């Protein structure tokens, strides 16, 4: 029961009032800020390409935010 699970595509969950910059700073601290935001957006089209909600921010608190690109097709 305590076998570690095989890795899946890693993701995080937004914290209250998160935006792309704050997630990038927290999750990709070693990448220059602008690049990190661009990377996050390219991995998360399901959020980035969504029309803005009434609250303005396109990131919803319940979203899944991927921290890496999809695995190459096998």
């Amino acid at each position, binding site marked *: *029961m305590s*076998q570690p*699970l*095989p890795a*899946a*595509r890693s*993701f995080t*969950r*937004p*914290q*209250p*009032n998160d935006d792309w910059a704050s997630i990038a700073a927290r999750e990709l601290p070693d990448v220059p800020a602008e690049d990190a935001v661009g990377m996050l957006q390219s991995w998360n089209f*399901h959020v980035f390409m969504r*029309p803005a*909600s*009434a*609250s303005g921010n396109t990131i*919803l*608190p*319940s*979203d*899944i935010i*991927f921290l890496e690109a*999809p695995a190459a097709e096998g």
Partner: protein
Amino acid sequence: MLDIAIRNGRIVDGSGLPAFIGDVGIKDGRIVRVGRITEEATHTIDAAGKVVAPGFIDPHTHFDAQLLWDGAAKPAIEHGVTTIVPGNCSLSLAPLKAEHRMKLVGMFNQIEEMPLKAFKEGVEWNWETFDEFVTRIKKDLSVNVAPLVGHSVLRLWVMGEESMKRCATADEVQAMQKLLAECIEAGAVGLSTSYVDMDETLQPVPSRYADESELDALCEVLSTHDRVLQIVHEFYDADLTVARIDQLAALSLKHGITTTLSPLFVNADDNGAVDKVMKRVKEQMAAGARVWPQVQTRPIDISFCFEVPSLLFIRLPSWYAIMRFGSHEDIVAAFSDPERRPALIAEAETEQMNPLWSRLVLRQVQTDANQGLVGKSLADIAQARGTGLVETMIDLSLEEDLQAHFLSADMGHNDNAKVGALLRDPNVHIGASDGGAHILSFSTYGDTGYLFSKFVRDEQALGLEAAVKKITSDTAAIWGLHDRGLLRAGFAADVTVFDADTIGRGPEYYVQDVPGDGSRYVRDATGVDTVIIGGAVAWSEAAGYTDARRGQILPT
């Protein structure tokens, strides 16, 4: 003296063990004996040549509103279903403050495609709390109901308009915890939430504004009461689905709760997606989590006419906007306008959408002139008329005053070998019928019959005993319905008697039986003989629906 004796049936008791010939004795709402019965009974059912099974349980429905005017959730019972779970997908009709009623009706209309008029004319709004709602529907109940509480509704009660704008404060989360506990004490089987749905203004539903800590706090309440969490995940994307499985597994392990996600489809364009998802389910289940993906038996068939908005058009903004927000006259005007008409056609004739138009079949019209075209494909009609596909669809709609109904069959989930393998998978929960919802798009009734006709008889994907187990004792175990799902002495007497050679779903047809002169697509059952709920016959093929009102709120 027994109330009912079912004699000489082939007993498939829900355990998955081989069938045997025997009798079932029923008294005071309970099964008192399974085997050979010599005792007299007030009512005897001769089940020779038939299967006697526990009543089927449908874990994913939206019968919430219908239960207010129809305590039998017709036609669920005649298909052999004795217990339904409404309140899925973050939406339930309680708890609900008076000032939020129309907001919730708007969401039900948008997401579950329930007509507004049915709510306006079929519903007397005389409840606010969950307890009041349950008391209200209990009065006239012939089917058993295990109701979920919707997360969006909890938020709306506690946060009002703010529920669609932001995360909850610590105080608000605490208020939701207290409210959820009250709902559970009043009879709720669990909590439902959604990560995909949008309201009638195309804004995310309230549950999508909940952060991780809010759901975690609500799961703490589910844990205390041993209740279930249901989610609608991003079912169109395998990576997102896998992420939701991991999220649910973490909640399941932390709180010791059962979780379920629905729906999981077999996508014809990406057959590998479902394998990837099931691989993760298997890994998480093996690690001790309870994460049950729900798989429906029927393929996706969608019907529409331009009188009501159809989700088929959601990717065509101009079309969807007129269907969603335009009146009958607006739609006719747009279709007839010399400038808007070609613009609409151009928007619709895309590489992505063309396969849809060429698949459409004209299924119902109102004029005599077009009656001869019913059953023909839109492509054939277009060719005969010398007009384009979308143009023909518009012309037919105008000729029929928007009452031309089109069917798009086999839109997905129709790879029978693949679906059959899923349905027999021990890690799959058979469900996701959506009973009572989408009533103007397709029939959500008859999935249990289809399990037997298609996957037991035609495909032989699973045996009779295994199929019965999947929709009876497995479902009861997953949902914590402890005295349901098995034919055993002491269990509640919910029993379905059917013919294994003929059980199935009849053809889909359109019927006007919804309050407010509303219509819906339904299917009749075939091969179901008698359905007993709470120890009384609720429906039989010979006599139809009875006066029995033995439905209970579960779990008891």
